[in-house]
């Protein structure tokens, strides 16, 4: 069997739908829709203003359809449901009061939430369609001063912190999808790590889209105060539906002096079928601001799902000596398309950035790396190292690299390396000759190719990511 045939056999095991009664608003988007969301969520006046400002700006913007190397039909923004929430008790005393159907759903996804079964060492915020349904270890974290809760709770309980940082990294008018998100976002996670605290466990959010007609617009805000440290993980899945669904999230990170944020994503949204029917449009704005001296923000992403991925997790290196890192594996198969990469904006002195991108394209897919390294005049002594490697499987896929480099002083150094390779028949034959099946051989080669990125992931996530790549490529590995 050829590699290409093997690839066609993949199965998506998260494609089930949860049968649950939901509170769904009519489809379409107007100012009234926004007022309705604000009312449902019982939000203060300042949030309504924030949303309306974003919405009014969004109306003046055009969708970025021309510069990314992507092709998809026009999205009808009036045909999307902007709020869908499972019906449940308004206030829950304990996680065990969460609808058992929801607990079962997350357990099936490998995310047990109930008190007895919680994952050790990882706190989870579980987001189902438009709302957060449960957050584990909230109380335990609070004891060390770490705030980890749903965005809805954050707006209610910590309005001053939210007001101070919301939109401070990604302004409401930043881009088309960020503006849309700012107008209609319904939930997400909020993390605050106070001065000098090393967060005692990994924080994570698991995003699940369930409703076939709704979009998911969530927001994550992480603030790490002086000298603090946090490692945050994000996972995502959705059922198999024939129509495309929009996921437009915004993630903002703020790192103050000497603070470190490590943000890891394993994205496995439904990718559509072999012909490209259905799947998630993953249009996401992620940006971190190294606001303080010696601060560090590190993005690691493993992108395997979605019909289309459009995202550029970026770092604004404002503080002197701050460090930005981007480690990415993007795998596309069948008719998937990805245009992903990063932006490293060097503002402060002696700022450093590292970009390691591994793109793997199979089937008829199209996989592009797009990255900007910008060194401003005052960023003396700034350094960047970029390495972009692409691997092609078969002859019907495509891989592109679009590096943009702007350096505005002469004391900085920027390095860029790129390579494109193919899994060769000789490589497969060599491994097979040692008794390794063709599927395991493909998986071994791909995992070797991605090793530099997997090394950055927390242990359990790295194992999951390797398993996932194997699954995505053959359907029978693991």
């Amino acid at each position, binding site marked *: 069997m050829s590699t290409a045939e093997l690839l066609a056999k993949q199965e998506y095991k998260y494609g089930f739908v949860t049968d649950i009664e939901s509170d769904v608003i009519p489809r379409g988007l107007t100012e009234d829709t926004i007022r309705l969301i604000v009312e449902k969520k019982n939000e203060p006046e300042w949030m309504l203003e924030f949303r309306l400002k974003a919405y009014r700006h969004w109306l003046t913007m055009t969708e970025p359809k021309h510069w990314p190397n992507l092709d998809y039909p026009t999205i009808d923004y009036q045909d999307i449901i902007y709020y869908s929430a499972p019906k449940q008790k308004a206030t829950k005393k304990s996680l065990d009061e969460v609808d058992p159907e929801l607990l079962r759903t997350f357990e099936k996804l490998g995310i047990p939430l109930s008190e007895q079964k919680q994952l050790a060492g990882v706190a989870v915020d579980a987001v189902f369609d438009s709302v957060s349904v449960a957050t584990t270890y909230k109380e335990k974290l609070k004891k060390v001063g770490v705030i980890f809760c749903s965005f809805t709770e954050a707006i209610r309980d910590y309005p001053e912190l939210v007001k101070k940082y919301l939109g401070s990294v990604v302004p409401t008018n930043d881009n088309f999808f960020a503006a849309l998100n700012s107008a209609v976002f319904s939930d997400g996670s909020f993390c605050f790590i106070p001065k000098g605290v090393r967060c005692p466990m990994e924080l994570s959010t698991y995003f699940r889209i369930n409703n076939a007609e709704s979009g998911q617009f969530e927001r994550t805000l992480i603030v790490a105060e002086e000298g603090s440290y946090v490692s945050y993980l994000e996972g995502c899945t959705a059922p198999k539906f024939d129509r495309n669904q929009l996921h437009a999230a915004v993630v903002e990170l703020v790192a103050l002096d000497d603070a470190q944020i490590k943000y890891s994503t394993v994205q496995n949204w439904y990718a559509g079928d072999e012909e490209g029917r259905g799947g998630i449009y993953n249009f996401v704005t992620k940006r971190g601001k190294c606001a303080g001296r010696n601060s560090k923000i590190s993005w690691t992403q493993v992108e395997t799902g979605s019909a289309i991925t459009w995202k550029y997790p970026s770092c604004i290196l404002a503080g002197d000596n701050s460090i930005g890192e981007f480690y990415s594996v993007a795998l596309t198969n069948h008719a998937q398309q990805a245009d992903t990469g990063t932006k490293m904006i060097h503002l402060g002195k002696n700022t450093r950035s590292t970009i390691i991108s591994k793109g793997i394209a199979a089937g008829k897919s199209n996989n592009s790396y797009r990255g900007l390294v910008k060194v401003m005049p005052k960023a003396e002594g700034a350094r960047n190292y970029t390495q972009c490697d692409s691997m092609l499987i078969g002859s019907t896929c495509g891989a592109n690299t679009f590096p943009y480099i702007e350096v505005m002083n002469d004391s900085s150094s920027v390095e860029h390396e790129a390579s494109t390779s193919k899994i060769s028949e000789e490589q497969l*034959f*060599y491994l*097979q000759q040692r008794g390794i099946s063709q599927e395991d051989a493909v998986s*071994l080669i791909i995992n070797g190719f991605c090793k530099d990125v997997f090394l950055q992931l927390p242990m359990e996530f790295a194992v999951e990511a390797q398993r996932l790549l194997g699954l995505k490529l053959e359907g029978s590995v693991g």
Partner: protein
Amino acid sequence: MLEIRNLHAGIDGKEILKGINLTVNKGEIHAIMGPNGSGKSTLAKVLAGHPQYEVTAGEILYEGRNLLEMSPDERARAGVFMAFQYPIEVPGVSNAQFLRLAYNEKRKHLGEEELDPLEFKDLLKERAKVVEMDASFMTRSVNEGFSGGEKKRNEILQMAVLEPKLAVLDETDSGLDIDALRVVAKGVNQLLTPNNAIIVVTHYQRLLNYIVPDFVHVLANGRIAREGGKELALELESKGYDWIKTADNGKGAVAPAQ
């Protein structure tokens, strides 16, 4: 153990092997010699199941099974091993990781329990002595940045770990200096038992001073042109291959070996 009958095979529609007959029994060492382009390496690759080579006629029986119906990995698990002339690099995959995966595939095939990384490390340390390989090679990516000699030693290390029943060494001596050649040959000799067999494919007689064959088969134009004992290799060394070619032109292919 191995019986090749009237084997015709080629690549890209071009016939290279034109009727090979060969029988290999347990405990034997066979040398396949011949000038460039005679089909030596093609024979090795057909035995291992290289996907680009096409068998157009004939059959190969391995332990009574039709070898040609087995995929390359099935053949390997059944004990057929080929040491590559040009070992392939696998970036990002450590030698130890690769060897353990291969070793455990074989154990699974035999219905034995897989070894965990620590158990395997002990085994690997033991086997590495066969080719005098340093422990630092185990953590390096498979063949990446290895010198020619190191790559060949790594092939024999794999052979030592996998303990094949039938090992085919495809020009293992090419590109080796005399010291490396000795190490490799010593390793191979240690691995020969009364229950396995080795086919040495080589252009030069040199290697056969160290790995002494029971039988020598000389290929010319895709056929076995001459067969004999180890003294045939010495004769070739002094007379060159032209002698075989001329002789072959005189009387056509010799009768199939029995």
